[in-house]
């Protein structure tokens, strides 16, 4: 008897933290959020079940415009991050040896020692009307009046790219390091040039790293609140800002919960689409 039950009990005990975590911190809040999102306030203290909160989202162009805008800019951020991070990662993983490699890797990590808030304020110091870049351009005679570089879409993307860079570099360096140099040499030896070796050998090999980096960066950008608000100002129109406004400013938790669910659906759909497009599976990229 004991022989049969003992391993079972052990398994249950081992699984317990995971199950509690899954249930209490993920499943429970989401079920509650979902219940909240399908609850409509018809009169003070009178509630009905229905999809009215979701209907509100589609009825008001500002909401779904913000929604689409957030998605597109997050995708753009992901692409820009990838384009910048790939050469950097390739350089760290394949061109450098020994100490310089570690130094450069730590340099990528360095900005993350300070909080995101401080880092974003750093960008504001650089970019605002009376900031360093604007002053420098005037001093150099390249501009005849102060330039406001904050509160534009480009600024938001710059800030988001900067914030997410590390999360792209780490998986890329890891996958690129696992690519044996002899594959690259064989690529050249058999007649390939830099472009074809990159396209046929390096990128296919790095694909799991590219996809996992992209997923993380996309999720971080989509769910980011601080950077779009600070660098984009009042007109940043980021979807998380809408959720915040519903919950905190308007105290409309039902609407906020519906928005939260819509954001979850959006990110799931785009990640799924990205995986399909790159012919990767989630287990491959995360494993």
């Amino acid at each position, binding site marked *: 008897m004991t022989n049969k039950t003992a391993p079972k009990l052990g398994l249950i005990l081992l699984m317990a933290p995971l199950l509690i975590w899954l249930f209490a911190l993920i499943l429970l809040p989401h079920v509650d959020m979902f219940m909240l999102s399908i609850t409509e306030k018809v009169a003070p203290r009178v509630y009905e079940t229905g999809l009215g909160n979701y209907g509100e989202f589609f009825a008001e162009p500002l909401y779904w415009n913000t929604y689409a805008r957030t998605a597109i800019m997050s995708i753009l951020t992901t692409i820009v991050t990838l384009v910048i991070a790939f050469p950097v990662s390739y350089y760290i993983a394949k061109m450098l040896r020994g100490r310089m490699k570690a130094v450069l890797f730590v340099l990528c990590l360095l900005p993350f020692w300070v909080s995101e808030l401080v880092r974003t304020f750093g960008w504001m110091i650089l970019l605002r009307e009376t900031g360093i870049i604007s002053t420098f351009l005037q001093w150099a005679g390249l501009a005849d009046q102060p330039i406001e570089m904050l509160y534009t879409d480009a600024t938001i993307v710059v800030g988001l790219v900067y914030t997410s860079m590390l999360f792209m570099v780490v998986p890329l360096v890891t996958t690129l390091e696992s690519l*044996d140099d*002899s*594959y690259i*040499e*064989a690529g050249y*030896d*058999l007649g390939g040039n830099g472009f074809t070796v990159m396209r046929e050998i390096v990128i296919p090999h790095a694909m799991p790293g590219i996809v996992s980096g992209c997923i993380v960066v996309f999720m971080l950008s989509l769910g980011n609140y601080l950077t779009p608000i600070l660098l984009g100002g009042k007109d940043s129109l980021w979807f998380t800002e809408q959720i915040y406004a519903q919950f905190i400013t308007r105290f409309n938790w039902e609407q906020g919960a519906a928005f939260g669910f819509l954001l979850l659906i959006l990110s799931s759909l785009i990640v799924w689409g990205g995986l399909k497009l790159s012919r990767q599976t989630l287990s491959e990229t995360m494993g």
Partner: protein
Amino acid sequence: MSSSPRTSDFDLECHNITKRFGDFTAVDDISFSIPKGSFFSILGPSGCGKTTLLRMMAGFLEPDSGDLRIKGKSMVGVPPNKRPVNMVFQHLALFPMMTVEENIAYGLKRQGMPKADIPAKVKSALERISLPDAGPKRIDQLSGGQKQRIAIARCLVLDPDVLLLDEPLGALDLKLREHMKVELKQLQHNFDTTFVYITHDQSEALVMSDQVAVMNHGVFEQVGTPQELYYKPKTAFVAGFVGDTNRWSGSIKGMSGNEVQVETKDGLKLVATAADQNLAKGQNVDIFVRPESVVISRKSDALVGIENTIKGNVESVLFDGANSRVLVRDPSSGDKIMVTLPQTGEFNDLQAGQELHLGWRLAQAKCFDTLAMSAEQLADMS
């Protein structure tokens, strides 16, 4: 350097090639030429510079000085993708993200072959290596020997002037390695391409090659056919590195013509044939004797007339079928002597501890100037 009309007889020529890494000279002023369609091996211990030399032929490294010519054309400054050579890498470097077909087609695409012609070419290549159905397989579905053949086919399909092989058999198990040795030689014959093969395994080099260059400390010690290297080594290093051998160190006590009288530091007196030109009395020398050159007998009178004789006790019998050997210990010096057992059946009941008389002829003992060798190289040789 002007190219004489004879240059086209050679697929690959090196003229005074040197390559240094900082203070270390990896390849030191090497010159050689490889005739068309031959199997040329470069044999040497690890760190002798053979990989550096091969990588210079492939174009991954540029020589510091000297000229490297393929079919008479200088290759200095030509990048690897523009050279008419291809390389089979040590770990093969078959692209894991592609199928077998795509691997073989990779180089053809890069050559700009029309898309329609590629499948037929790939198919015929697969047939030539007798793997006609392997095309759609993934690389990790292949066995070690199949991977080997695909890696060679991937290069040979491009019709290179020279195929470079960087110890490709190293990763295989012993039995497969023996099999691939024969197969590689046949492939070379079938495709009629010049092969340059580098290895530290003397048996691979001896079995497959038309010509072998023995390399040590960045220079070629000797270049010749396997038979020449085995029977007529020119230096102590070649004598010790190629094939198994017994070795005694001592100093010259007397010389008459080609015959050298040597005394080891344990007082053993031996006679040997001078294989080095400039030996002189008093010089420290090494004597090499092959295990199969030693005659053994249970009685001393069977060895009458043989110049060198020793009495010893059997330390152990190393039975390996036709390659069985016996290790004999000379009680006076403690030296261990390896002897190949004759296949007459006479010694089948040999036991450890038994007394044996050993003898070998003057002509079979080769005397060389003592070689300064690192401990690592000595370990490689035994």
